[in-house]
Structures are given as structure tokens and as C-alpha cells.
């Protein structure tokens, strides 16, 4: 078994009086693709936001390489190599594609290294190179998702957390994005993938967790989960 690099222990998050997470435990090991499944409002996005400190955890801990990062500032979590690609892609629509990528490497001080990374991301997503002078808002949905992932890769993350990368995209584009995620993973980046599209996610992932109203109701290897009757019924629509 390889080393656990991200560990959530009894993590609890509240919005006012409302519990979004009710003490969840998740482990991500080096090199894995782990997926978080669940319906709208199950707490998937909140989990990622809590890890990246956009929302504060009310109880429990987030450990990254054994270090407690539960209450670290969001920017310092990025500096450690944990990147969160938010739901809805959230690219900067009124900045150019190139500026979006540059901002991805904000923590980097070295401009030559920045250029190198931009070239690497452009190799992965040739369409971004073609459109680098255009405003982010002019890209199609799929291209915006590529830009969001490319921007996150600019930090050369150790863990890439993706929140619903398939949302609102045509099936063929979804497949394209999933292939790229697979490729990023095979180059050594650990992936934590939040998805509503369980079918696509389980095909890609090594392991999965199923969230329901802030609690983990099931976990296991992806191949086991994808044959589990209740999951098939609830999320795979068969």
C-alpha cells in the first residue's frame, strides 16, 4: 500500500445551524484517483471547499502528508501543492486565456519557469495555445473546463481536486476531459474527483466514496461500487 497523503478525520462543516458535513472520514493515497459521489446537496463541494479552507471546518481535521492543514489559509494550502478546481470552472472571463494561466502560477516567482509551465499546459490542451490572447469568457464550456484544469496544473500540484468537471458538457467532451484527467494522473498527480456522473467517475477512479446528506454511506473500490445494486439504482439509472 502506498502512502496516505490526504486524510480527513471526522470532518464537520456547518453553514450557520445547518450541517453540510457530519463527520466524514476520507483517505487519499499517493497516485490514486478517488471519487466522491452523491446527489445535489450531499456535501461533495463542501468537502472540497473545506479541504481548501474556503469554508472553515467546525470539527475534525484535514491532514496533508501528516501535517494538520485544517485551519491554514487558502493560499498556503495552494503553496503546499493541493489545488481545487471549483465547480462551474470559475475561470476569469474578463481576463485573457494566457492571463488565466499565469494567475494559476501566482505562487511562482520565476518567470522562466512560468513560461515553461505554460508551454507544458498548452501541449496538453492545444486549443488553449490557439486562443491564448482571447478573453476566457469567449471559450466554449469544454474549453473553459480545460482552461480551469490547465490553470490548476500551473502550480504543478501533488493533489488535484476537481469539482464536477463534466457538468454541462456534451458526452464526447466529457470523455475527452476524463482522458486528460487519466493522463494527468498517470504522470504522477493524485486526483480527488467530485462527480454527479457516477458512471463516468467510477470508470476512471480507483476508489470511491458515496456521500448522502453530509455523511459517507458507502466506500470501496470503484469496480465494486459500480456493480453495487443500490448505487446502480441511485446513480447509474439502470
Amino acid at each position: 500500500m502506498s502512502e496516505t497523503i490526504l486524510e480527513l478525520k471526522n470532518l464537520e462543516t456547518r453553514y450557520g445551524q445547518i450541517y453540510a458535513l457530519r463527520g466524514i472520514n476520507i483517505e487519499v493515497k499517493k497516485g490514486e484517483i478517488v471519487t466522491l459521489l452523491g446527489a445535489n446537496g450531499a456535501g461533495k463541494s463542501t468537502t472540497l471547499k473545506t479541504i481548501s479552507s474556503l469554508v472553515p471546518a467546525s470539527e475534525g481535521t484535514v491532514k496533508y502528508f501528516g501535517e494538520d492543514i485544517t485551519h491554514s489559509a487558502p493560499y498556503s494550502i495552494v503553496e503546499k501543492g493541493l489545488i481545487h478546481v471549483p465547480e462551474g470552472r470559475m475561470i476569469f472571463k474578463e481576463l485573457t486565456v494566457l492571463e488565466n494561466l499565469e494567475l494559476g502560477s501566482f505562487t511562482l516567482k520565476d518567470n522562466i519557469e512560468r513560461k515553461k509551465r505554460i508551454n507544458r499546459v498548452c501541449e496538453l490542451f492545444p486549443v488553449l495555445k490557439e486562443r491564448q490572447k482571447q478573453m476566457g469568457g469567449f471559450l466554449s464550456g469544454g474549453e473553459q473546463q480545460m482552461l480551469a484544469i490547465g490553470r490548476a496544473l500551473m502550480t504543478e500540484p501533488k493533489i488535484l481536486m476537481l469539482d464536477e468537471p463534466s457538468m454541462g458538457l456534451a458526452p464526447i467532451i466529457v470523455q475527452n476531459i476524463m482522458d486528460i484527467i487519466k493522463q494527468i494522473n498517470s504522470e504522477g498527480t493524485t486526483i480527488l474527483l467530485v462527480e454527479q456522473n457516477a458512471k463516468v467517475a467510477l470508470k476512471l477512479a480507483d476508489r470511491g466514496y458515496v456521500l448522502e446528506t453530509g455523511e459517507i454511506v458507502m466506500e470501496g473500490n470503484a469496480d465494486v461500487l459500480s456493480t453495487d445494486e443500490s448505487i446502480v439504482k441511485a446513480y447509474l439509472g439502470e
Partner: protein
Amino acid sequence: MTSWEIFLQQLFNGLLVGSFYGLVAIGYSMVYGIIKLLNFAHADIYMCGAFSGLIILGFLNPYVGNEWLGIIIALLLSMVLVGLLGVVIQRVAYRPMLKAPRLSILITALAVSMILYNTVLLMTQGQYKPFTTGLTHESFYIGALRMTETRMVLLLAALVLMFLLHMFITRTMYGKAMRAIALDRDTCQLMGVNVYMIIAITFFVGSALAAAAGIMAGVYYGTVHFFMGFLIGLKAFTAAVIGGIGIIPGAMLGGLLLGLLEAFGTQIPFIGSSWRDVFTFVFLILFLIFKPNGLLGRIESERM
């Protein structure tokens, strides 16, 4: 004077006064863009800039032989000092209010404004202070345009500052982060941007530019007093709205445009210069009614 000479003269006056408005408007616009605050204290920062310039100049004058050298040193020093004042105000007064409702921080800004101008009021007993520079105001002609060395340098300095700011926000990572935070603060945090640091830098730059404008106004008008920020504050705000508040090139454009409008407005028969301010605020009202997003502002559209 022929009408051509009047035109040239007013064009120059308009650009010069407009560049003061622009420099102050930039601070309003940057701060509004990044934390959605109409920083009422900004006009008082401008006034503090003028006074700090005057004080520093007073210290320097016996030692520095050349008048321009003295002013340049005083300008740069004041920009740094007042820039830091802006950062301190931001840290002490605004940062604790960032998560509070918008109205609370607005009221805080009013309070900061009162503290600043009352402090200067106490220190100066409300008197007009001569801004003595030792510069000669000899005029000469460029073609039909009557000109003094001082006014030429002032316009040039203002344009240089605007150009430097433009380079800062388009070419440096900090400038890019500043624009990105204006668009989406949360996502910036996910990029590893230390949002509080960028907000502090924004206040530094905005306050430094206002200080520069304050000193330039001191040199131009020859006197300073504790309430000098009030009117120019309103006008710079107007300029920011005309250009599209939150948009930095818009603030520069709005400032220059407003300066020109005023300069030429006073030339309209029966409307003398005493109506100049009325002119400005009529424009503000017209813009707020017909083009509230300003000249460079876009109507915000959401796309999933």
C-alpha cells in the same frame, strides 16, 4: 485671444486638471473594484498627501538647491508615506469589516474620512497654507499656447504616473491578481493568491497616487487646506463613474474627460466658470441615469 487660442488653452487646462481628477479617481476605482467599497476617505488621503508633501518640502528646502529636485523627492517620499497610511487604514479600519454587510464598511469609511480631516484641521487651525515651492511662474508660448514650465511638468508627471500604473496592472503578477480579485475573490484564493496582501497593495498604490495628485494640486494652485479633498473627491468619484467604476483605465479616461468638460463648459456663453461644479454634477446625474456602467463598463452577463 482668437477662438483657436482659447481652444488650445482650455484643452491644456482641461487635461491638466483632468489628470488630477484621474489620479484620484484611480484610487476610488481600484478599491471599489477589489472590495466593492466607496472609499470616502480617499479624498482625505489626497489632502494628507498635499500636507505631507508640504511638510517634507519644508524640511528639504534649506538643503536641496534645485526646486524641482526638492519637489520630486518630496513627491516620492509622500507617495510612500501616504501609501503606507492607506495600508494602515485598510488594515485597522476596513479589513475587520470585510465580511460585514456592505453598509458597515461604508460607514467606517466615513468615519476614517472625518478622523483624517479633523486631525489636519486641528493641526492647521483650519488655515490655508501656502504651498511654497520656489518655482517661477514665468510663462512662455508654444505656438499660440501660453505655458509655464510648472504646468508642463505637472501634466507630464501625471501622465507618467498613469502610464506606470497601467504597466503595473497589465504586466506584473500583482497587477493581474488585482484585476482577478475584482472579478472573483474566492477563485483567486484557490490560485494561491493571498487576497489580503493584494488588497493592501491596492490601497498602497491608490493612496500613493492620490498623494501625488495632492502635491501636484498644491504646486498648481499654490495653497492647501484641510478641506481641499472634499470637492476633488466628489469630482474624482464622478470621473470614476463616468469611466465605469472598478475599471482602472476608465478612471483615467473619466478624469481627463471630466477635466475637458469643465474647461470647455466654462466657455459656453452665459455659463461662466462659477457654474463649473454644477456642470460636473449634471454630468454625474446624466451618467447615472443613462449609462450607469460608465463608458468602459460592461453590462454584467452570467454564463454557465
